[in-house]
């Protein structure tokens, strides 16, 4: 009986973790200074193309060639990314979300990470509230 309870609790915990993967809880961990960082490549079309190449080489294996998601790995065309600032996306890329399956990419040079962010931004044009935040920077 006790073993069953432990098993059920573990199952419940694991299923809660699965939900947590896609709940965007990482957004709460982003420090304000990182949240407000502006993308140095904003508005540069060649950076979008470079970011697309980098995305295909590093991210597409999990998130799909067109960022459509694969299995439990989320699509990167989403309202959450539309509402996220460039700084928040850059923070996630650098730090990852290791306990929820997303590795950190701190080993990739920062410039390359920003190029990936600008590519992701091109797939997720910012919502009006986010545009106001970006405009204020």
């Amino acid at each position: 009986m006790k073993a069953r309870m432990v098993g059920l609790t573990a199952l419940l915990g694991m299923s809660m973790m699965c939900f947590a993967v896609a709940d965007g809880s990482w957004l709460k961990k982003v420090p304000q200074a990182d949240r407000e960082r502006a993308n140095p490549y904003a508005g540069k079309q060649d950076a979008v193309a470079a970011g697309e190449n980098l995305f295909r080489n590093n991210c597409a294996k999990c998130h799909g060639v067109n960022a459509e998601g694969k299995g439990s790995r989320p699509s990167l065309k989403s309202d959450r990314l539309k509402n996220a600032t460039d700084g928040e996306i850059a923070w996630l890329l650098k730090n990852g979300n290791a306990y929820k399956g997303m590795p950190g990419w701190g080993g990739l040079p920062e410039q390359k990470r920003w190029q990936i962010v600008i590519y992701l931004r091109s797939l997720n044009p910012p919502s009006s509230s986010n545009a106001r935040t970006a405009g204020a920077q």
Partner: protein
Amino acid sequence: MHAILRSYIWHSRARIAVLLVLSGALAMSWRTAEAQQEPPYFVSYSSVMEEPGNLEVENQNVTAAPKNARAFFAPTVEFEYGVTAWWTTEVYAQGQATQFDSSIYTGVRWENRFRPLPREYWINPVIYIEYEDVNAGDKSFLEITGNTSIATLAVPNALLRKEQEQSLEEKLILSSNVKGWNLSENFISEKDFGESEPWEFGYALAASRSLSLKGSASECTFCRQNFAAGVELFGGLGTSDGFGLSQTEQYLGPTIALNTPRGLTYKFSPEFGLNDNSVGVLWRFGVSYEIQQFRDWFRRTK
């Protein structure tokens, strides 16, 4: 005549090995992309883990012609799998061929690396634990610990293979990423299970950088962004009976890697012995290929 025949066999084996590596590389070169954040190290580890679900297959080789010993060629095949974003496991199988002697299988290793901190910090620790079941004929130079000597390289394989060692090796890996540079420091300890031998210690230090910090708008193979270069320094630090650099091997060398957009990484490094106890030059080359999302092969929904 006999010596000439054995020399011919040795060179044939070396040629076959090179051909196998090249043909494998060509056969796989149509596949897709390789992660570009892994530093070009042979001995040192950084905090970069294998991406979850990916399987990297690597063929790493070292060859040298030590003074007062016969030339050798030691290939290692590695299978590295990302279990989670914070846990990577790896199995090695290794062997060696010695000129005018024989080719032998030298053993297996099973390593696990754990990244305990969930975020990127100015210094990122990784805990490394490895079980080794190798014989004394091992010439892979995957790490140097304790007091070793190149004199053992002159011992015939028939004797070396009889001496089997099971040991546990631990490493504290510290790694930082600063302005495009990776700096990694590995502190190694090793304990042989079977005998009352002392703890052995070693180290590896490395620094590297991608030749271009920016990505290119056009896809290319030989452009700067796909190259990474660095330097590695590694060697023994004695044992618990006598800590220090005395009677240890020490090596220093540049290293370079090419990450092709087709999924293959090529690495090369000449490592120079820094004292009389070390081999003059260790020539290393390796090729690796990452099978992306290998675990999806066993899933119904992909």
